[in-house]
């Protein structure tokens, strides 16, 4: 029997992670609630400055909510593999280590995308922003690109810090600077969608996010083998 290719192996890992999450659902619920809480806190901080301030800061606050929620979500992605030497079990399977990375990164992207249907409507309500159908589609596309850009390095560093002392301290310390380029581009792009784009700059910011997605997904896929072999 021939060994399945990288794509099928990755999809199998993705299926495993989604099935695990579906049986529990605690992670998604906690992360969504956390995201809503971040949005509420920012609106409390800026609310007394007037509606205009809320509208101007909406894009940035939405990205920060996604970013902070992603840290919480990503930290959990290798927690399940800690129990009963599950990671060694995965590595003993006839799979490429890269397929573990791509499967988990896809699952993490999925969880971050799952935040959008809640966080975007909450933002429009609390921050008093009105979005047309085109803007909603633009935000959805940008969200997917940003989620992919956060998930790839996040998965690598979650694997890297697993079983390390003070994982909770190290993970944000290592991950935050790495995610700043994607965050900056997403904040700019969200701002252009919310406030209008008279100079036609949206496509260049989107290209930048996609460029980082490609770099991170390729580079992290190659490096993951070293990380996971050391962790096991």
């Amino acid at each position: 029997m021939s060994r399945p290719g990288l794509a099928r192996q990755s999809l199998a890992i993705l299926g495993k992670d989604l099935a695990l999450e579906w049986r529990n659902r605690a992670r998604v619920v906690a992360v969504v609630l956390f995201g809503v809480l971040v949005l509420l806190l920012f609106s409390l901080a800026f609310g007394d400055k007037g509606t205009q301030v809320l509208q101007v800061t909406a894009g940035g606050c939405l990205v920060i909510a996604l970013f902070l929620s992603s840290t919480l979500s990503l930290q959990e992605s290798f927690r399940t593999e800690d129990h009963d030497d599950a990671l060694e079990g995965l590595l003993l399977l006839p799979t490429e280590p890269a397929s573990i990375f791509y499967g988990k990164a896809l699952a993490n992207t999925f969880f971050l995308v799952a935040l959008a249907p809640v966080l975007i409507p909450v933002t429009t309500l609390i921050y008093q922003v009105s979005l047309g159908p085109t803007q909603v589609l633009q935000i959805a596309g940008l969200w997917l690109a940003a989620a992919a850009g956060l998930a790839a390095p996040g998965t690598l560093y979650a694997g890297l810090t697993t079983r390390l002392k003070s994982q909770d301290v190290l993970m944000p310390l290592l991950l935050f600077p790495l995610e700043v380029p994607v965050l900056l581009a997403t904040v700019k792009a969200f701002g252009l969608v919310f406030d209008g784009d008279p100079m036609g700059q949206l496509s260049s910011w989107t290209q930048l996010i996609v460029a980082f997605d490609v770099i991170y997904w390729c580079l992290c896929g190659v490096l993951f083998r070293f990380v996971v072999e050391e962790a096991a």
Partner: protein
Amino acid sequence: MKKMHAFGLVGLALIIVGSIYGLTASPPERHMGDVSRILYVHVPTAWNCLLIYLFAFGFAIASLWTGKQRWDIATTAAIETGVVLNILLLGTGMIFAKPTWGIWWDWDVRLTTSLIALIFYAAILALRTFIDDPNRRATLTAVTCIISFVDVPLIYFGVRWWRSLHQIQSSPETMAETMVFPMRVNAFAVLFISIWFMLLRARIERSKLESDEVVEPPVRRAMATA
């Protein structure tokens, strides 16, 4: 040993020559006046900071590729030297920014990416302190160093890609020869001093590992029999 200190001596001699020339023979810049003289330190520090990060990237690939400890030592030495240069780069940049831009700091692309690089590489040094196993420490240092290098081209090209407060790179064609000379001399000076620092740091790291090897076996034996 003597060769190692020769780098330091040459570097110090060059920086004295470059600085004296920059402070006396070189003319003040037309718009900024004498304040511009800090560029003879700031720009060479910036060039060498990026160069040392490039060295760290190369050493990290070699460490991951060969698994040899000497490359991990070299990577660590380069990262530490790069972090020192990065702090100096940001510090001299802020001193220059206050009289010229009117502010100590701005979230400009080059300043932001330079600060991110400092946090990146300082975080790698923090990561190392949490890992006891030398092999795992070497692998994770190399992986994080390779991925952190993504920021370095952004520091260099960011001012061209985005409109930013920080000016784009100058070239010898756009500068007076009397300004190019101290800049070049100081660039080599900082390079020699950086190599000296890296060699010293590598020697300390090697001695530390050797002393660990001497101390650890009896401890491990004791733990194994306990």
